[in-house]
């Protein structure tokens, strides 16, 4: 299990515990935790509605892929810390990370 924090659109932070051995994406964990993540394309890096900002723990994540950057750069707001939640795999590297929801809610 790995524990990281999520900051919602209103600025509330909460810890989330997620299994790191099931190949889940951050988007799937956010949805399962009932965060209002739209995730229109179901995790194919095609819609950018699962946009998050990595406030802490960016180094453990590796670089964004080209399709991920393509989507992020199409958004009205993109930060140096922007990522697509569906492209982030849950692994022990996320321990202690902090994500801020930036994408569109349902």
């Amino acid at each position, binding site marked *: 299990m790995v524990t990281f924090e999520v900051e919602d659109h209103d600025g509330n932070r909460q810890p989330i515990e997620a299994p790191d051995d099931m190949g889940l994406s951050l988007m799937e964990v956010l949805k399962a935790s009932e965060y209002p993540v739209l995730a*229109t394309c179901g995790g194919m890096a*095609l819609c950018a509605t699962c946009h998050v900002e990595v406030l802490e723990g960016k180094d453990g994540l590796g670089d964004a892929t080209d399709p991920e950057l393509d989507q992020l*750069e199409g958004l*009205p*707001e993109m930060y140096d810390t922007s990522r697509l939640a569906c492209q982030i795999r849950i692994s022990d590297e996320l321990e202690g990370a902090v994500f801020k929801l930036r994408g569109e809610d349902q």
Partner: protein
Amino acid sequence: MITTDICIVGAGPVGLFTVFEAGLLKMRCHLIDALPQVGGQLSEIYPQKPIYDIPGYPEVKAQELVDNLMKQIEPFNPSFTLGERVDYLAKQDDGSFVITTSDKTKVHAQVIVIAGGLGCFEPRKPVLENLENFEGKGITYMVKDPEQFRDKKVILAGGGDSALDWTIFLSDVAEKVTLVHRNETFRGAPDSAAKVFDMANNGKIDLILSSNLTKIAGNGHLQSVSMKNKAKEEITVDADYLIPLFGLSPKLGPIAEWGLNIDKNAIEVDTTDYSTNVERIYAVGDINTYENKLKLILCGFHEAALMCHSAFKYVYPDQKLSFKYTTVNGVNAF
């Protein structure tokens, strides 16, 4: 006013196939979509992605499926209103409806079919003070009629393919075109990006890189747009139009206000004919919900067929419908 038998809200794959099923029963259709092109999610989100679960096609690209659906419904001559969102619905005394769009187009129909998918694809908007005040008064999120920009000063914002394509296109129409992009490079098609850099070098357009929009100003109509670069230097450029092109995102939108039973952004239907709680209004495809609903194109097609057989009674109240295979009569236009 446009008059038709069935008005279909949404020209995604399911809305398009509804025209075919309706056409077989000699019912005419008019389709309305908020997007400037048909195809719904297939054309907007994943045109190049292969689809594997359409019967008879081991593999088909999403856009190719849309093109084929258009070909398939051609004999029935449907009419279209594209680039307009359906806003209002008014029931008439005889049970029929009049639909009104965001551009005040009116369509009179005996039956309404909502094939609205995930909802309306709405433009993603930049965060700018007073943005709403200038919408339709200089700010527009879609190029419907390029002539609108003839001899005007136009600023485009964005770094994707549509920002590049429209910059190239409008450079021959507008008095002056400025493209503002957040980064130094473009991730759109390399050819288009190269062309845009070329045009900037030759002074045909102004290219403002590594900059974000900060302010809009004007007196009733847009007059200028300000932007800041990474060094926090702000510049202001005169403009008649600003076209932010940051992609689209779906929202349920006005359909939510029509008195239909809605559960989690989807319309509840009766699975015998996909009718809603309001007589003469049906909902098919991704926008409806029922027990065990699967959001698949295939399921939407099935729903469209059953729905049309049910709608027949409203369009031809004096006739009895007897089911025949399509192969019995062929595909006959009206």
